[in-house]
């Protein structure tokens, strides 16, 4: 073995330029794989962090909600949800895994701004939540992929009437000015049909309401308010007022145009009125993502044991975009790996074929001395593997250095589905599976590539090899 490696190493040095070229191809392959792999790993971590901060790792729903509840969330409320939360928190398996557990209420309805100067309404998708719990969830950053926690004081547990909306909804409801949103156009003035008596009457009423509201507003809080109309669980219409504490871009336009976040109590008041307040979901944010599967399995067992008609969904199911992006990046990574693999394969095959041709006489000599065919095969394979291993190692070191430089450069980018820019990072360091996998993959490719010419050398008849000039 020692002699094998000694000869392989010396032969590699003997054809230094050729070995350098081949090793460079392997190193380039390693750099490309690791940098893209590091970028993809960062994307995955960023997406996961974003999702886990928003919707937690797991959400408990009443059975059937996930598939059928979107049209009528109120009908799928979890009865005695506080008891369910307590049951989960006290469970010796899941309890210690939980970072945050919080109820949520989803609802749909119509949001309207009838402040006098504007009359606009729009359907909305609302979420009722506990603001302090949301803030705790926003601080989760297991993979250090977050842009950094900035406290959001637009909602608080103390003020049950204050919420926030999507920038798109703010625009549609004519709240750009009152909320001081940049790049957000004001609504065009409504034009009633010319000569219409009804139109004239409407204008007069609007003006009157505006004067009354302006009078009311003097000396009071200038924060805009909107009316939220929704059907209660019993089917009756209900209205609440929401103080709009601010607007937050939502990344996806459809959501941005419909998003309303409000305190849980307000959402429950709107949906359940004076009847029992329920929650459509119980969100669990775990300390570590790796506990997700175990926590889910335990919850499913727990609910079955307690005969609770509940189901558990993870963030990947609730946010299919996460899985789609992950699949896309995985496919691109695989494509790059294939291209790099083919390049490396041809480079090594070419180099080793030339080595075999040049050393055919040497093959004949050592075969005559008593080296078996397998020995010749091992000799040339070892040379290919050595070039591959050194090239892959150099490539890994280069990739780590480049990744460190990029990470220090302070570059930012806006990932798909995100509303704000985040730091651009290449997560190569610390990704042992990625680095080890790329290294091993290239080593395997170079081994396979070296095997082809090595086999040819091993099969050479000794006499023919000795005659070779």
């Amino acid at each position, binding site marked *: 073995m020692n002699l094998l490696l000694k000869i392989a190493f010396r*032969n590699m040095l003997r054809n230094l330029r050729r070995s350098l070229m081949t090793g460079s191809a392997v190193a380039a392959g390693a750099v490309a794989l690791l940098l893209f792999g590091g970028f993809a790993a960062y994307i995955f971590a960023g997406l996961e962090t974003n999702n886990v901060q928003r919707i937690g790792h797991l959400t408990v729903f009443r059975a059937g909600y996930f598939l059928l509840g979107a049209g009528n969330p109120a009908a799928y409320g979890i009865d005695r949800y506080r008891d369910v939360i307590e049951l989960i928190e006290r469970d010796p398996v899941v309890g210690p895994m939980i970072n945050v557990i919080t109820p949520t209420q989803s609802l749909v309805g119509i949001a309207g701004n009838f402040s006098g100067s504007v009359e606009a309404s729009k359907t909305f998708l609302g979420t009722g939540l506990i603001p302090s719990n949301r803030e705790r969830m926003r601080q989760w950053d297991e993979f250090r992929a977050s842009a950094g926690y900035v406290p959001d004081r637009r909602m608080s547990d103390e003020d049950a009437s204050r919420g926030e909306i999507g920038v798109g909804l703010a625009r549609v409801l004519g709240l750009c000015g009152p909320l001081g949103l940049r790049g957000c156009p004001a609504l065009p003035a409504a034009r009633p049909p010319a000569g219409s008596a009804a139109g004239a009457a409407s204008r007069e009423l609007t003006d009157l309401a505006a004067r009354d509201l302006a009078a009311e507003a003097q000396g009071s809080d200038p924060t805009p308010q909107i009316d939220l109309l929704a059907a209660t669980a019993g089917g009756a219409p209900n209205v609440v007022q929401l103080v709009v504490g601010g607007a937050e871009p939502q990344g996806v336009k459809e959501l941005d145009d419909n998003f309303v976040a409000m305190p849980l109590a307000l959402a429950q008041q709107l949906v359940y009125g004076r009847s029992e307040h329920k929650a459509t979901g119980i969100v669990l944010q775990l300390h570590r993502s790796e506990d997700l599967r175990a926590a889910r399995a335990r919850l499913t067992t727990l609910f079955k044991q307690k005969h609770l008609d509940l189901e558990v969904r993870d963030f990947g199911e609730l946010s299919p975009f996460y899985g789609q992006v992950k699949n896309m990046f995985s496919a691109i990574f695989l494509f790059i790996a294939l291209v790099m693999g083919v390049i490396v394969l041809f480079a090594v095959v070419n180099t080793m074929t030339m080595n075999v041709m040049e050393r055919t*006489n*040497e093959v004949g000599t*050592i075969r005559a*001395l*008593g*080296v078996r065919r397998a020995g010749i095969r091992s000799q040339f394979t070892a040379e290919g593997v050595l070039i591959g291993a050194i090239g892959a190692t150099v490539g890994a070191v280069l990739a780590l250095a480049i990744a460190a430089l990029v990470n220090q450069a302070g570059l930012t980018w806006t990932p798909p589905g995100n509303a704000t820019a985040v730091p651009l990072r290449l997560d190569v360091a610390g990704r042992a599976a990625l680095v080890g996998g790329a290294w091993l993959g290239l080593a395997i490719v170079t081994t396979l590539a070296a095997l082809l010419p090595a086999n040819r050398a091993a099969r050479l008849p000794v006499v023919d090899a000795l005659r070779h000039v």
Partner: protein
Amino acid sequence: MARAAVLVAAATGADRAAVVRLRQVAKTYRSGTLEVPALRGISLEIPSYRFSVVVGASGSGKTTLLNLIGCIDSPSSGAVEVCGEEIATLSDDALSDFRARNIGFIFQTFSLVPVLSAYENIEYPLLLVGMPQAERRRRTLAMLEAVGLGGQAHQRPNELSGGQRQRVAIARALVKEPQVVLADEPTANLDSTTGASIIELMRRVQVQSRTTFIFATHDPQLMSHADETFTIRDGELVEHRKGDAR
């Protein structure tokens, strides 16, 4: 062919038992549809511990005969027995092991492994037979001294002269103490003075190690040292002559 079949070297006494036996050995090379006979039914016996020479014109079949004896080629017909082993019965791996244990080669072009030093080239055959390191070292250093290259142990082949390279090749062939050493034109690439010293060296170590040397050569100097001379013409053994060198 019939005449060649009856030409058998004399072997008398236990120490003169035949180390090589060829019976009706023929070798034909094929190139497409063309068949070129290299050996035509040769039978011969080469006794142990002798300095035997195969002579003949270029293309007469000397090298083919040596290749068959060296177990690096197989006959088209007939039987080859070396060191008591019927070669045709051995697998490729078994043949390799057989060569590693029993046969040493000295090539016209020296054929040293270029990335190994003189010491490492000589040590190489001992590694193939799995000899312990201490014994390898002892034998390698002794052989280096025997061929007069004690000071060149760590030089690579490209740092040695032609004569020095052939000395390394001789040491490599002899270090494992094989029963047979085959040398194909070992002095052809050397000047006459160096050739003479190489012949002298081979003769000396052959006597010391009691190894059977078989040469294919044109070199009259080498022929003059032969104990046995086999003359081949057009693939047939036409003459066997015992020399008086010893």
